[in-house]
């Protein structure tokens, strides 16, 4: 009781104990030093949006552009854009062939974009490569008019072939080559794939037909068919169960090829 009263009066007289004052000064000095060091070394906008310099975003966004975009080209060259818009090259950006043109858009007279006319530029996309997707128009550079420039026959803004290809192999080269060395070499493509005439002009809009049932293969391969002797024959009712023929056999290169 007496002790508590004594403590209370002491506390009232010296409001903050001396050791705390000294500790406080030390803390204040350390905090000051920390703030000085922080202000000196941490960049101004650091931590504003996250653990990075917010100003960096502005610097990166301020980078100048080189490719102006297809819309910018169409503003002046609307005639070419209209032709291209209806052609197979509608998805191809102008600057894909003519090169980055933002300088030309800024000042049309200052620089003129390139007009590539050499074969290699077209072959970059249209050279036959096994890795390219099926149906993408490709040519064998040694076979397809080797010394002519592409632009002599094809208008790059509307590249549809001036003469429709006469043979399926012109576009479906990989399949044609496989079939040529297989047991089916003598079969015409049209024997299995009846193709509308328009397919040669507009391949994706008019697709050729494909066989849909086992009986189609059965015309030659069923027991009792009147095909030449020597063609392998199976009992359609028993062979293969519920599978369709082409789920096991590849018709362009059947077994034993």
């Amino acid at each position: 009781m007496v002790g508590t009263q004594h403590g209370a009066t002491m506390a009232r007289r010296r409001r903050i104990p001396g050791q705390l004052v000294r500790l406080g000064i030390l803390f204040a000095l350390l905090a000051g030093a920390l703030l000085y060091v922080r202000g000196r070394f941490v960049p101004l906008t650091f931590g504003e949006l996250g653990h990075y310099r917010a100003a960096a975003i502005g610097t990166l966004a301020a980078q100048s552009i080189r490719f102006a975009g297809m819309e910018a080209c169409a503003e002046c060259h609307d005639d070419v854009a209209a032709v291209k818009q209806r052609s197979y090259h509608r998805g191809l950006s102008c600057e894909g062939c003519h090169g980055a043109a933002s300088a030309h858009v800024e000042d049309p007279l200052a620089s003129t974009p390139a007009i590539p006319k050499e074969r290699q530029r077209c072959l970059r996309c249209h050279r036959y490569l096994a890795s390219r997707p099926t149906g993408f128009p490709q040519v064998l550079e040694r076979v397809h008019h080797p010394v002519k420039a592409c632009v002599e026959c094809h208008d790059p803004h509307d590249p549809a072939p001036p003469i429709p290809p006469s043979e399926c192999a012109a576009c479906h080269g990989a399949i044609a080559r496989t079939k040529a060395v297989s047991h089916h070499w003598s079969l015409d493509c049209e024997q299995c794939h009846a193709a509308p005439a328009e397919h040669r002009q507009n391949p994706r809009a008019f697709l050729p037909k494909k066989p849909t049932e086992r009986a189609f293969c059965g015309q030659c391969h069923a027991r009792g068919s009147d095909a030449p002797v020597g063609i392998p024959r199976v009992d359609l009712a028993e062979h293969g169960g519920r599978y369709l023929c082409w789920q096991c056999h590849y018709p362009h290169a059947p077994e034993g090829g």
Partner: protein
Amino acid sequence: MGKEPSGHAIDETRRRLICELAKLPAATVLLSLTGPVRARAEGDEETDEHHYAMGIQIDRCIGCGLCVEACKVENDVPDEPFYFRTWVERYTIYEDGEVVVDSPHGGRDGFRPRSEDEERRVLRSFFVPKLCNHCDNPPCVQVCPVGATFKTREGVVLVDSDYCIGCRYCIQACPYGARYLDPRTKTADKCTFCYHRLRRGLLPACVEVCPTQARVFGELEQQASPLHRLKRFEPLHVLKPELNTDPKVFYTDLDGVVR
């Protein structure tokens, strides 16, 4: 009776002491807030409205390399065949199961037929364009010791070249090999989704020049986005999903052999 006032006195003393002590950290916080001048940089109106991402349709890529060429021009990437922000790989799977991946000059000049293909039977072959995956959980950002690489609120992972110390940790950490050290500035660099073009409402340069629309750019959250449409029609895959990096570059028709 006598206890009550003394109890009050102790409480009061304690309260004062706590108040005095509390002033110290409060002062520190106040000082640190007012201390350095807070200046917002020009044009850094970063927003939450965009969530950028890219889709790549492998069955459409023809391996022309226009994207690689355009990227180098747009972003002034050194021309040597070690520095790429985007590149195209050719995967060839032979009948014996061997997988060969090649990327001559990153595909910048297009591809030529492989000489081996004439002797060996190719089972399947395709092109895979690659770039920074702009991971939602980016390992490169985690390892940066100075905070020079970061993910903006739009989801784009960027490098602050003025602040980068060129320690190459991020290059090591990236599981997709998307980063390189710029030989001129000696700082890390990588694809930015052409951030400067996005800000101007343009598409990234690689998407702009892609002739078959194999690259689709859009926003993840918006319904009316080409990427959203792609998502509705095709199952999308990412590279190395087991690493939990949550990439924002999506692939369709991704073959199991692609790493």
